[in-house]
Structure formats: C-alpha cells, structure tokens
C-alpha cells in the first residue's frame, strides 16, 4: 500500500477488492450498463479488438514491404490497409484504451463514488463503434491525414462515408473530453487545485485538449464530405478552394491529437509509479507545471506538421520552430521526475516482479528514444534535409505511440486485470509478452530511424532495391511479427487466466521486499 501522505497529492490508491466483473457481465450489462467500470471494461475490450485489427493490417502491409517489388498487394489495397491501420490504431485503439483505463481508475483515485456523467462515456463508445464500422465499409485509401485535393480524387462510391466516420470520431472524442474535464473539475472543487491528485491534472489537461481540438476535426470532416459530394469547394483549389485552410484546420486538431493518448498515459504513470514503489512522486509541482505547459504548447505548435512550406516561413515558421523545440522542456520534466522518483529510494522486489511495473519502465525508456529526435524534427533546416515525410517521422511517432503510450496502456490493463477478473494473469506469459514487445518495438523503431536517415519515403507500396533500404525493411518486418506474437500471447493470457488464473484476494500489488539484500543477515 502506498504511504498515507501520497493521498494528499497523489490521490487515493487505485485499489478495490478484486472482483470478477468480466465473468459476471451479461451482454445487456456490457452494452448498456452505466456503471463506470462496465463502460471502462467495454472500452478496453473494444480497444484491444481494434489493436488486433490494426495490428493485423500492419502485419499484412509489413509483409509486402519486407522485400522490394510488389508481391502481395497492389497500391490501392495496400493504401487501404495503411490508412485503416493508422485510423484504427489512433482513433480506435490507443486513445480509447488509455481513456478507458482512466475511466476505471479516476473515480477511485480522485475519491469520488463513480464517474460523473458516465452517460457521456457511453455515448462516446457507441459513436466510436459506428465510426469503426463506417470505416471498414468505406475502406478509405487516402492516409489518415486525407490531404485534399488528393483525397477528393480517389476511391470508390462509398468513400464519402469515411469522412462521416471521421466526424463521428470527432464527436466521440469530444464527449470523452467532456466526461474527463467534468470529473477533473469536480475533483479540483473538492480537494482544491493545490491538492488535486496528478490524475486529476491529467484529466483536466486531457479534457481541455479534447474539447479544444476536436471541433476542428469535425469541421474538416464536414467540409471534406460536402467537397467530396461536390456540394461545396472549400478545400479543392481546382474549384476555387484553398489547401492551406485545410492544413491549418486539420493540424489544429492533428497536433493535440497526438497528445490525446499521451496525457492519460502520463497520468496513469503518475498514479501507478507511487503505487508500486510505495512512495510519492519526487516533485508534485514539477509534474503540474509540465502538464500545464504541455497543454498550452499542444495548441500552438501545429504548423510544424506542414513546414517548411512557403506559407509557414518567416515569422510563423520561426515561432513554430522555437515553440516546438520548447516542448522538449515539459516532456523532459516528466521523465526527469520519474527517474528521480525511481532513484530516491530502493525499488521493492514486489515492483520488480510485477509485469505492469516492467511496462512502466519500458515506457519511460521509449519516451526518451522517441522524444530526443524531436530535437532534429523541430529544426526547419534538418526538417528540410532528411526529416520531412521520410521514415524519420513514423519512427518518431511509433516510438511515442507504441513505445510509450501502448506500453503504458498495457501497464494499465495488467494492473487492472485482477480488479476486472478477480484473478491474476499468468506471470510467465506476461513476461514473455513484455520481452517480445520490447525487443520488437526496439527493432522496429531503430530500423525506422535508420530508414528515415536514408531517405526512405513514407506511404510507398514499392521501393528501389537499394541495400540501405531493403535490409532494414526486412528486419523491421521481423520486429513487427515479434510484436504480433506478443499480442497473441497477451490475448491468450487475458482469456485463459480469466477462468484458470490464480484467484486474487486482498491486495494483489502489496509491497514487499524479499530480495536477499533487504533480508536481515543470518546470525552466525
């Protein structure tokens, strides 16, 4: 158990009596219950399904990319796979998963009876499911950024549904933002801002980001749909529209969008780290400062996604460059805080054994791997040299999305496992999953960086058989398969342990230090 002085600023320990929620849920409860734990579990389960789908798509096109030339897919099905991979992973898997983990933990940590306005979370889930179905029906092939006018000139008769799906995603995320902000504010009102647990700060930041950014996505989706239907010509220059309008509106959502899974992941990390170490975070105010600066910067740095176009050169370009570089400060403050927390006292043996704790450590590692390269990504000169639209960009965001956020989401799911099923996962399978993922992600990310540095273009089905391209692509595909294997182990572990795992009683994460160093020396 965490020490009592945690509760003032770290919040209550997220601990319930382990209980089998999943096994006792009827279909009706699963679909319509407004109990926040049911909604959270539902969100986690669907997110894991989406991870499976998105991952399968990734493995399919990775297999194609393993060797030069076209072996399995033509350009169009390949691009559909890639587009759906991006949309499923970001909209369907990572954001809902970390938000669902937060739904589950938040009421307890913030000391409330339940999630306020759970109905909003319910609607958010249903909207997202409809969006996912629409996406599968429309099979868009214009990448998840659907830049006009390209996206207006491709695809089949059902493609317009893809834009409606994006609109529904925006609505779903907006509703989730309302839920998080409302709960964060309610907690702040109860405890006062100076004693608001860090998860509360996370909820407020996330809520502001979601509510502030998603209207832009909704707007873009509506105009893309009307443009596609030929009812309007907002974004098509050939018919009098303007591409820059799109860029500024879309990326006003698009940059905060990458922080949407980041904030909850950080909030969960701040909640679980004290839980495993049995001591508070090194500096509460450093964390609060970092949350606040990140939230503000998230809204102003978005032009870096389309620099160095002429329209963002000059003063806007320079300001964007400086502000983007400054993101270095708050994100490093978080990492600094975590490392300082790990360092200032011993790490209990119980933590070292726990699979969620391992995932937390791996998350911190990959946040650094993904984060440092932001230093070259942000500079206009290096961006115009080798960063812009080469594999350096996917390398950066895969290190962040998979290495940090997905690892952190997994830490949350493993942590909550006994509270959802009343049983413990299999330790051996959990460890194997952990290592498969970490090796796979490391291989994948380093190979992507390598390819980016060698100017490998994004979004290609086929590439020249250069030796600096072909070899890393092959290794990269190997890494992706390793991640896939890890995922299969995870799903098996999840389902098998739910009925056969060791029953969890009392506190599944009780802190104990039974390492030889901590044991009293035998008397001689």
């Amino acid at each position: 158990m965490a020490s009592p002085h945690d509760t003032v600023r770290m919040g209550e320990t997220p601990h319930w009596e382990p209980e089998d929620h999943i096994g006792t849920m009827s279909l009706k409860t699963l679909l319509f219950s407004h109990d926040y734990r049911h909604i959270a579990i539902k969100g986690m389960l669907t997110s894991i399904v989406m991870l499976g789908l998105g991952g399968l798509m990734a493995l399919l096109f990775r297999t194609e990319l393993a060797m030069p030339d076209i072996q399995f897919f033509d350009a169009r099905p390949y691009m559909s796979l890639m587009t759906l991979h991006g949309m499923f992973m970001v909209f369907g898997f990572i954001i809902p998963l970390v938000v669902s983990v937060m739904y589950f933990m938040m009421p307890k940590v913030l000391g409330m009876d339940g999630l306020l306005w759970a109905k909003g979370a319910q609607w958010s889930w249903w909207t997202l499911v409809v969006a996912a179905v629409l996406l599968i029906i429309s099979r868009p092939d214009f990448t998840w950024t659907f830049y006009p006018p390209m996206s207006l000139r491709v695809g089949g008769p059902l493609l317009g549904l893809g834009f409606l799906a994006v609109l529904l995603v925006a609505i779903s995320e907006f509703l989730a933002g309302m839920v998080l902000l409302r709960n964060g504010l309610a907690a702040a009102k109860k405890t006062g801002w100076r004693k608001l647990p860090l998860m509360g700060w996370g909820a407020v930041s996330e809520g502001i980001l979601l509510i502030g950014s998603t209207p832009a996505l909704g707007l873009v989706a509506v105009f893309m749909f009307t443009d596609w239907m030929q009812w309007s010509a907002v974004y098509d220059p050939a018919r009098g529209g303007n591409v820059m309008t799109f860029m500024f509106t879309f990326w006003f959502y698009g940059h905060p969008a990458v922080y949407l899974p980041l904030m909850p992941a950080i909030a969960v990390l701040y909640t679980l780290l004290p839980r495993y170490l049995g001591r508070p975070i090194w500096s509460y105010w450093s964390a609060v400062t970092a949350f606040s600066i990140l939230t503000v910067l998230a809204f102003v740095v978005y032009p870096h996604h389309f620099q160095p176009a002429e329209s963002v050169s000059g003063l806007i370009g320079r300001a964007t460059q400086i502000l983007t570089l400054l993101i270095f400060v708050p994100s490093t403050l978080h990492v600094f805080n975590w490392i300082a927390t790990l360092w200032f006292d011993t790490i209990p043996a119980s933590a070292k054994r726990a699979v969620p704790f391992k995932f937390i450590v791996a998350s911190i590692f990959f946040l650094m791997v993904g984060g440092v390269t932001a230093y070259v990504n942000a500079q206009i000169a290096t961006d115009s040299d080798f960063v812009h639209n080469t594999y350096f960009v996917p390398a950066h965001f895969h290190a962040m999305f998979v290495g940090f956020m997905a690892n952190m989401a997994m830490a949350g799911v493993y942590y909550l496992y006994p509270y959802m099923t009343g049983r413990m996962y299999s330790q051996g399978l959990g460890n194997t999953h952990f290592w498969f993922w970490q090796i796979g992600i490391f291989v994948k990310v380093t190979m992507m960086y390598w390819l980016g540095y060698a100017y490998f273009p994004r979004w290609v089905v086929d590439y020249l058989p250069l030796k600096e391209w072909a070899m890393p692509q092959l290794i990269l595909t190997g890494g992706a398969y390793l991640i896939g294997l890890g995922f299969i182990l995870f799903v098996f572990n999840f389902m098998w342990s739910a009925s056969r795992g060791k029953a969890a009683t009392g506190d599944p994460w009780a802190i104990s230090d039974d390492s030889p160093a901590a044991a009293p020396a035998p008397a001689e």
Partner: protein
Amino acid sequence: MENALGASGYTATMMALVFIVLGLGIAALFAALYLPARWKLKYRMEFLFVGLLVLMVWYADRESTAMYKQYQGEIAKAGFVDAEGEAREGDNFDRVIKVVAFQWGFAFLTDEDEISRNAAVVKPGEKVLFRIFANDVIHGFNIPAVGITAEFDPGVERDLWITAPREPGKYLIQCLNYCGVGHAQMKAWLVVEGEEA
C-alpha cells in the same frame, strides 16, 4: 542541407547532440533502477536542468535559422522573388530547371525549353535551381544524394537549389508526400554528366 545524408557539419552536430542526450537519459534510467546507491535529488537541480534544456533550444534555433537563412538567401539573390515573369538564369546559379510535378511523375524544362520526363541533366558540382510547380495535388520533392526535401501545395511555386554531386552518375529524385495511388512510382533521376563546371 547540402551534405548528402547530413554526414558532416550542422546536421551531424545535431544528431550527435541527440545521441548524447539519449545516452545520458538511458544511463540515468538504468542507474536509478540498478545502482545500489540511492540518491534524493535536490529540487534546485531541476532548475539547472531546465536551464540546460533552454540553452539547447536556443542553440538549435540559432543554428537552424542561420542555416536556412543562408539557403534561402541564395534564392533571393537570384532576383526572381516574385514569380511573375519567365524563369531566367540567376547570376549565382549555373543552371535553372523548371519542374512540373504531376500525378505521378516529374517533368523538367530547361531554359532552352527542352522537356525531359523523368531526368534532370546537370554537370558535376553545378549549382542548380529547381523552380517546382504542381497543378493537381500536394507533392513532395526529394533528392537523397544532396539532402533536400520539400513539400509543396498545388498552385504555389517553390524554389529549391542544390549543389550537384561531383561524381557523375544517376541520382534518385522522389516524391515524399502521399499524392495518390501512384505515389510509389513518382520518381525521376538527377543525371550528372559531362565536365565539371
């Protein structure tokens, strides 16, 4: 930006900084996990740390801006800042090539109005100005061998210049921005041949 793969100079410095910071970070993480010694950091250490970060930000901004200004300055010196008239050879460029990017390929027009689909012919070591234009969708323009990549919107002309490689040969030119199903095939060649300029 003139260095192939950024193997030296500014880009290399920045990459080195990235590796140093990453190395220090990972070392700190592992030390925190495995070193027997425990260390409670003073809070004021963090201010020092933030100071160092801000210094890094300042350095990156200064270097990048200087680099990019110098690069853009060469184009400004050529004297056709407004793109109204015909492209004429600027004093400080050995060759001016108009590039039309389309779905899916590049066409190169020299000032003698020679059109080439998919090959820009230059002499070794020449300073070449590309005036790039697209009418249909957003495209990209990248020559790996000389380290330049750009994205440009339909209807807006962009000027990019390079120093051609000294070694004669065929160098890849490719689109880096997704522009439709033929994107992967959108390639051309920078052909370097003849006497050094």
